[in-house]
């Protein structure tokens, strides 16, 4: 799976799981401020990402994920994309 595919699948997930506006989902978009996802929502998103991509994101690593791009980075690193 290449980075573009990860990005596109993540975008689909954000729309379906969190009901976000697709237009607003850019790599620099911050979950809590730009996308108005509350802190628990970010936790739920990370769990959905784990299930979607079959990866495990440890709690310490999860703390560093604040934007859509950072989420893609973490998944890409784990999948070696």
């Amino acid at each position: 799976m290449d980075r573009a595919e990860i990005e596109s699948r993540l975008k689909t997930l954000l729309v379906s799981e969190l009901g976000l506006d697709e237009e607003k989902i850019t790599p620099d978009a911050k979950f809590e401020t730009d996308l108005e996802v509350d802190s628990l929502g970010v936790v739920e998103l990370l769990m959905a990402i784990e299930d979607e991509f079959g990866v495990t994101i440890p709690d310490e690593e999860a703390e560093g994920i604040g934007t859509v791009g950072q989420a893609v980075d973490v998944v890409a690193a784990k999948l070696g994309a």
Partner: protein
Amino acid sequence: MTVGRVALVTGGSRGIGRAIALELAKRGHAVAVGYLSSEAAALEVVDEMKSAGGSGIAIRADVGDPEEVVAMFQTVAARLGPIEILVNNAGIRHDRLLARMGIDVWDEVVTTNLTSVYLCTKQALRTMLRARWGRIVTIGSVAGISGNAGQSNYAAAKAAVIGFSKSVAKEVGSRGITVNVVAPGFVETDMTDDLSDDVKAAAAASVALGRFGTPAEIASAVGYLASDEASYISGHVLVVDGGLAL
């Protein structure tokens, strides 16, 4: 009327846990009976649930061990479905006056009575959050509210689960998950069997109802908090002690 859900009762093979497992099964839920060493007793509970028309499984785990807790939740999810009702009941006492209490006795009680609640609740939230529904009930103790000589370790852990539950209740309330504590007083179980008759009589005399409670009387309170009817009760400590030291 009642929706059958999937429940896990830790320490479900004996005493209060056993009664809770049977109560939840009676209410139509599929129940995983958690145990550490009492396999035969856990299987008996499952048999009893089944002969009454219910369903359930026995599941072994050390609830103080992070990996075993994850494995337990995975096994229950695979066999019954994602856990929707968690009852943190597993607990031990190891009484000693504080002046004579070694760190091992402290750690043992805190790990089994408190760390286990953190581990199991955290794991349960994974599926409850996405389901937008969940019931978490932790068994506390009046010792955690009033204190008890010889039980500083136990009372500390039981008080801690109250602060823990109230905090988590605030974190996950927006997702339809309630988090409560049931705090029993004196109950007829193995845990109180070893008290001398004099101590038991004095204890019973301090209760308005004049007697120890039964495990079933604790279980019915848990069954209620785990139900749909209790949907607006969260962060609460329900004391079930027969009117102790009123």
